[in-house]
């Protein structure tokens, strides 16, 4: 059966507690390194004043996105972008709901405009002077699979490389107990409809049924995957880090998987 969508991975980015970038993740997964101390996502692509003002979700997404674009060698200004997150900036939502319950007129205007789900897309396009289309999406617990499907669809439909960043920060307060997100995680891809210069190939096909998560037996990876909806990407990221030519499934909706065949240019 031929795949519904074929995209080529031209850039990869990742930030996890203990793995500050994609290479550090690869060292842990493929080369037996220990996770390092957790550092603040550097978001080097943002100008310093924006970096100071930006909330954690923006720093996280911009950190992974910046790595992926750098690896691709493409100009971020030309890349349509899709930012996907199950819950957006939960810390700001927690702040907003707490403030609204006690002193609604004291709501911070900066926090409010940082609260929109497309804040990372906004900061990113401003920082990179990107006038291409930008989107901010969610698929709840399946935000990674849904975002991957959307980004691959956009790349193939418009025959142009697309940046995907998928991120979630840890939940806080009463909201945090509803979202069960215990740690931060972000990944990013530059996905191209063409093979040129790609690190890997993904053949994607939506398939009925959501088969759920499977433990890998690697304690750090399994804990990471369970900590955060965006980290449902972890098995895929581990396969990419090990350059495994393999097939796996990623949940993309309540009753839908993305079947992914991974291959590598020789």
């Amino acid at each position, binding site marked *: 059966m031929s795949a519904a969508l074929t995209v080529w991975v031209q850039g990869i980015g990742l930030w996890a507690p203990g793995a500050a970038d994609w290479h550090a993740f690869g060292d842990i997964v493929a080369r037996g390194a220990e996770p390092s101390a957790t550092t603040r996502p550097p978001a080097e692509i943002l100008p310093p004043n924006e970096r100071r003002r930006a909330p954690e979700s923006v720093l996280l997404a911009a950190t992974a996105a910046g790595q992926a674009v750098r690896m691709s060698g493409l100009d971020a200004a030309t890349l349509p972008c899709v930012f996907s997150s199950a819950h957006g900036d939960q810390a700001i939502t927690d702040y907003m709901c707490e403030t609204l319950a006690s002193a609604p007129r004291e709501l911070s205007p900066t926090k409010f405009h940082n609260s929109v789900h497309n804040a990372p897309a906004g900061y990113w396009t401003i920082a*990179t002077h990107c006038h291409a289309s930008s989107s901010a999406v969610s698929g709840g617990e399946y935000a990674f699979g849904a975002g991957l499907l959307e980004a691959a669809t956009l790349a193939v439909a418009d025959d142009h490389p697309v940046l995907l960043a998928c991120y979630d920060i840890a939940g806080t307060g009463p909201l945090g107990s509803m979202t069960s997100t215990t740690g931060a995680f972000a990944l990013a891809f530059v996905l191209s409809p063409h093979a040129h210069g790609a690190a890997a190939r993904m053949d994607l096909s939506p398939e*009925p049924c959501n088969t759920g998560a499977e433990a890998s037996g690697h304690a750090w990876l399994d804990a990471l995957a369970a900590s955060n909806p965006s980290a449902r990407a972890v098995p895929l990221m581990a396969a990419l880090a090990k350059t495994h030519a393999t097939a796996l499934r990623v949940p993309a909706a309540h009753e839908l998987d993305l079947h992914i065949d991974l291959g590598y240019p020789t």
Partner: protein
Amino acid sequence: MPHPMSPLAVRAYTATSALGHGLAAHAEALALSRGGLRPNDISSAPLDCWIGRVDGVEQVALPGPLAEWDCRNNRLAWLALRQDGFMDAVRDARARYGASRVAVLLGTSTASIGATEEGYRRLDHGRMPADLHRPVLHTPHSLAGFVATVFDLEGPCLTVATACSSSAKVFANAERMIRLGLVDAAIVGGTDTLCDSVLFGFNSLELVSPSPCRPFDAERDGISIGEAAGFALIERPQEDDDAPLFIGYGEASDAHHMSTPHPEGLGAELALRDTLDRAGIEAIDVDYINLHGTASQKNDEVEAALVTRFFPDTTRASSTKGFTGHTLGAAGILEAVMTLLAMRDGVVPANLGGTTPDPHCGAQMAWHAERADIRIALSNSFGFGGNNACLAFSRQGGAA
């Protein structure tokens, strides 16, 4: 440069807003130039402003199996879904194509955050109260999850949350998925409801008017926030199809500022050009534009200047936010529906609330309702973060 798109049929559509439930209420309000704004009577603390509130949401009862999803936003969605035969149209598409071949692609800016706010107002020992211990509500994906559950659909299910362009952009998502054969039909649209987050949030930015909003008026002093739900079912047209057609879209970013539009409307113009290219039309072909026209100082200045320099005087243009308020993430679908009604009924909606034209306005502005033969129309939706979208529709397949 994008290739022209193959037009898609808008098989069914509906909207519910401060103007009433369903298409007939909206068509009547547009024909009579009768708005739906009222003094704010919904925020948890007093706030001096006008709102577009939907009557009857409080009385909506979700059926037992959907009880987990109960909140104001999903009640409004449920109310809207049951108008104009929309549920039957979706069930018919599901029967024809299969549950996994109909996508759910919905826009919202705050989804059911009203339920999260309520939980924080009555915390139980610092925790979410037991009756709101429902994780499906405390996420931006609540609306799309709800609608997929209502119709028992098993295909792609995506929330687009790009603030005020959200439920316009979902039309683009649908076109891509249908063109690539991932699905055969898509429910597009969106829902946003009045809640403290948006009322006090926009108030904190000093963007809310104490009076009913006056889009494109020289004396305008801010937006009026509203709530709405709207949905459309998109699929490939059949031969001799008499459904209105979705013929083009454009999406672009300002890359300028989080809460202020680009001063020359750069992103808006890019989205507009993208739309005309994909539709294979030129500015002179456009009979009507439903403008974003929020009544904020900056948006209206920039958008008026864009229309003035880009379109001939024969193109008529108006904002309908004076009727409904700015319904944020639902504005894209609500105004797409207004545009489809304008084409269906041959009525250019009045730019309600505006009396003294902003100096940037050109002769395109329809300050009062007009009769017109509208064959091709656009709808603009611009959001926070410089997120711009534009949609193009034509009245009917071939028979126009």
